[in-house]
């Protein structure tokens, strides 16, 4: 989903783009790719991928398949596949991941957990259940 320049390759394919002028409050659960450039308070889940832009502020627990972070997250993060932290990423919370890359300058204030295959499935199921509700 992400290219080397930390941008979404298929930006046009994003189901949801939350621009810098938008503030989201509540439980934001989507099905497609999500781009967050604005602010969000609550929870953020998708069964696809999430891109958090440089100026974005997310105060929420975040769950996704792939997650690219360049902004700030205050909350726990669960990523089924690949987590990429850009140089401006700041995460305050625990992180569960399968694979991860981190650029110089990124900061994490929390614990890191590598997730097992069983946990991967449970993440996928919990997202599906939320979407079906």
């Amino acid at each position, binding site marked *: 989903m992400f290219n080397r320049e930390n941008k979404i390759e298929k930006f046009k394919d994003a189901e949801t783009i*939350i*621009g810098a002028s938008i503030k989201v409050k509540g439980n934001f659960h989507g099905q497609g790719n999500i781009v967050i450039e604005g602010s969000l308070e609550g929870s953020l889940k998708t069964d696809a991928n999430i891109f958090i832009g440089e100026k974005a502020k997310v105060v929420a627990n975040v769950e996704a398949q792939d997650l690219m972070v360049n902004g700030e997250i205050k909350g726990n993060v669960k990523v089924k596949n690949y987590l990429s932290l850009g140089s401006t990423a700041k995460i305050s919370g625990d992180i569960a991941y399968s694979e991860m890359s981190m650029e110089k300058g990124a900061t994490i204030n929390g614990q890191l957990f590598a997730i097992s295959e069983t946990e991967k499935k449970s993440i996928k199921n919990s997202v599906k259940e939320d979407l079906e509700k």
Partner: protein
Amino acid sequence: MHVYIYDDYLNKTRYNKAINRMEIRLTDLGLNGKIIRLSGIKNIKSAIQNEMRLGAKTIVAVGNNQTVNRIMGAIIEADIYSDFQKNTLLGIIPIGNDNSIATSFGIKNEEDACNILLARRIERIDLGLIGDYYFLNEVEVESRGTVINLKDYSLEIKDKGFIKIINLINDKNNPINSNPHDGKLDVYVVTKKNTQSLMRLDKFEVVSEHPIIVDGVIEVKSPVTISVAKNKLNVIVGKNRCFQ
């Protein structure tokens, strides 16, 4: 049988030439039908319902966006519409200004519209529903201070700009590839700080202190619920329509 419904404003002499061209073309193509002029009718719904009872298969709105919206509302709110849903079609012959709906359907002018009626290319499309009012194209509202409420979350827009809630685009160059078959409305926000947002939603409430304008002609009061009526209307479209 075709029923042609002419809007009031077409009585003005400046539209005579266009009306004549259209009527000649319809005659040439063998598409003549009954003509109803809205200026002489108080209750458009009952008039259209009567025509549907009498077997009208195609109702053609002759006029602009406002004409189409009035006639479309009358067709789908008619009690008998559900019985005849598969048969009753809406056609459009655009005359004058404010014809973005015809543009969406790939109809350029009145003569082109006649050819499209003859070709009879039919699409069954979603409609937007704002309050009790159906719309084809889009709803627009100033973005600053407007809040969109959904079941589980809300969206608040901080900066000046506009919000477009799109069912059907009227410009092929529009970056939003809106599709009136997907059961969703595209909520597109562009601010003066040049930030863009896009969400695909099916039901939500809009709260705003600014006017909420439907298809460029009608103002609706806030707060209002907006949703999608899926596969609600059969329309005759041109091959150059703005959607697939």
